[in-house]
């Protein structure tokens, strides 16, 4: 096929992402899982790249976590989302960016539903007015925060102090990229690369010097699955999903995992500990696990921010072997020091998986 033909086909898989003026909505759970991730998204976009990204302290959860757990009806979720859009409208923005993959899927699903059923949109507008006397305009663009980092990946690479390269061997680090299910599996045309060639994370990893590895269960769910985890009786499904992925990626010896969903880094991180305690098996080198990072944390690392400011001590899997590989300096004594060098609690060490 001629080059121009390939380019034309590939252009069908692209997503239009405005480069500036965004209203940012945080995730309801990421702040407690990996609190540095969202903070450093703002630091990178606003302070480093000088973009206009606005957030409002009055925004709430999008309701997606309850919706996918079957605990609240869809009309309630829609009204919550309508309020988020009202906050965006009041702030004078037309582009909506969210931190959470499930939120992204939720906003996209609701906008598509309103397009199909305008009478439902009218009802939600009425609900919102009755509930809090607010009105809203629908966003012109909805993006996930990883779309923006993907768009800015080369700007970040230009400013990077480190590359995803093993400093001893000079070889690129082997990166597993894991995209959240609600990113492009529900509405393929809303994601970069669609459902067939999703490249939002692989694009970042390659721009920053890494080598993305392809393995059989690459597109398998991380295992969170909402009720698979939230209902304890089902939790074995969640664990078995994650175990399947690790068994599949193990022969390729990944150095790290990059994710763009709140649940994925959490479960790909924490379940490694549970698997090691249940089976005695670890998947990293020398008895360690494979670090599972969010894309903001990885961007922060290559840009040279302090690993402990990025919140990497909140990961179950030790991050130090990865930092040593890249050549990032860190102070082990400061790992568990919080603001103003106040001592925060140290976790107990696992019995099987090595942690620093």
């Amino acid at each position, binding site marked *: 096929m001629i080059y121009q033909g390939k380019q034309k086909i590939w252009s069908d898989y692209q997503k239009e992402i405005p480069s500036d003026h965004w209203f940012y909505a945080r995730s309801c759970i990421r702040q407690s899982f990996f609190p540095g991730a969202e903070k450093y998204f703002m630091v990178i976009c606003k302070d480093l790249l000088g973009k206009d990204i606005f957030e409002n302290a009055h925004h709430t959860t999008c309701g997606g976590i309850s919706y996918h757990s079957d605990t609240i009806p869809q009309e309630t979720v829609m009204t919550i989302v309508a309020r988020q859009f009202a906050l965006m409208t009041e702030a004078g923005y037309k582009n909506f960016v969210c931190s959470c993959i499930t939120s992204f899927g939720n906003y996209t699903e609701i906008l598509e539903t309103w397009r199909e059923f305008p009478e439902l949109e009218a009802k939600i507008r009425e609900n919102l007015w009755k509930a809090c006397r607010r009105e809203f305009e629908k966003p012109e663009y909805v993006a996930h925060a990883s779309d923006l980092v993907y768009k800015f990946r080369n700007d970040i690479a230009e400013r990077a102090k480190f590359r995803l390269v093993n400093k001893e061997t000079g070889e690129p680090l082997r990166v597993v990229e894991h995209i959240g299910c609600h990113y492009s599996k529900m509405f393929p045309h809303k994601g970069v690369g669609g459902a067939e060639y999703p490249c939002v994370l692989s694009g970042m990893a390659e721009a920053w010097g890494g080598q993305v590895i392809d393995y*059989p*269960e690459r597109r398998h769910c991380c295992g969170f699955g909402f009720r698979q985890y939230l209902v*304890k*009786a089902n*939790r*074995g*499904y969640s*664990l*078995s999903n994650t*175990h*399947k992925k690790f*068994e*599949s990626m193990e022969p390729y010896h990944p150095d790290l995992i990059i994710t763009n969903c709140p649940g994925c880094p959490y479960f790909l991180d924490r379940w490694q500990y*549970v*698997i090691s*305690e*249940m*089976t005695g098996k670890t998947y990293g080198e020398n008895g360690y696990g494979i670090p599972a990072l969010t894309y903001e944390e990885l961007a922060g690392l290559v840009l040279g921010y302090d690993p402990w400011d990025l919140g990497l001590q909140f990961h179950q899997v030790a991050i130090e072997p990865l930092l040593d590989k890249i050549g990032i300096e860190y102070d082990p004594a400061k790992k568990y020091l919080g603001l103003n060098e106040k001592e925060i609690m140290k976790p107990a060490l696992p*019995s099987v998986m090595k942690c620093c």
Partner: protein
Amino acid sequence: MNFGFSLSPSSAVNLDKIDLSLYHKMEEIEPDVRICIGCGSCSATCTGQPFSGMSLRKVILAIQRGRENEAREMLSGCMLCGKCTMVCPRGINTRHLILSMCRYWDGEDHGYNLMNEVEVKI
């Protein structure tokens, strides 16, 4: 450590690790099995299928995936009526394939044991 939930074994089939010797034996017995397109005509027409779970399409797939026990269990429900041979769009002698596989498993000395079991079931 007991977390209150357990790990289920994966049903994934790693084609690099499974034992394909049985499949190769099947190819030796009936080389035409290589041209099977898995259309399922044999299973659709099988008289025993609704009662015994016999499905030649699944048997071939199970053997290709190294799942011998699964294949043996299904084949024990075959009555050797030969309808599958008549409908196979690729012209595979499926009846010969099934009979030969049963003989291979049971050994020539006990070649009809499995068939006797089938008769008892019927």
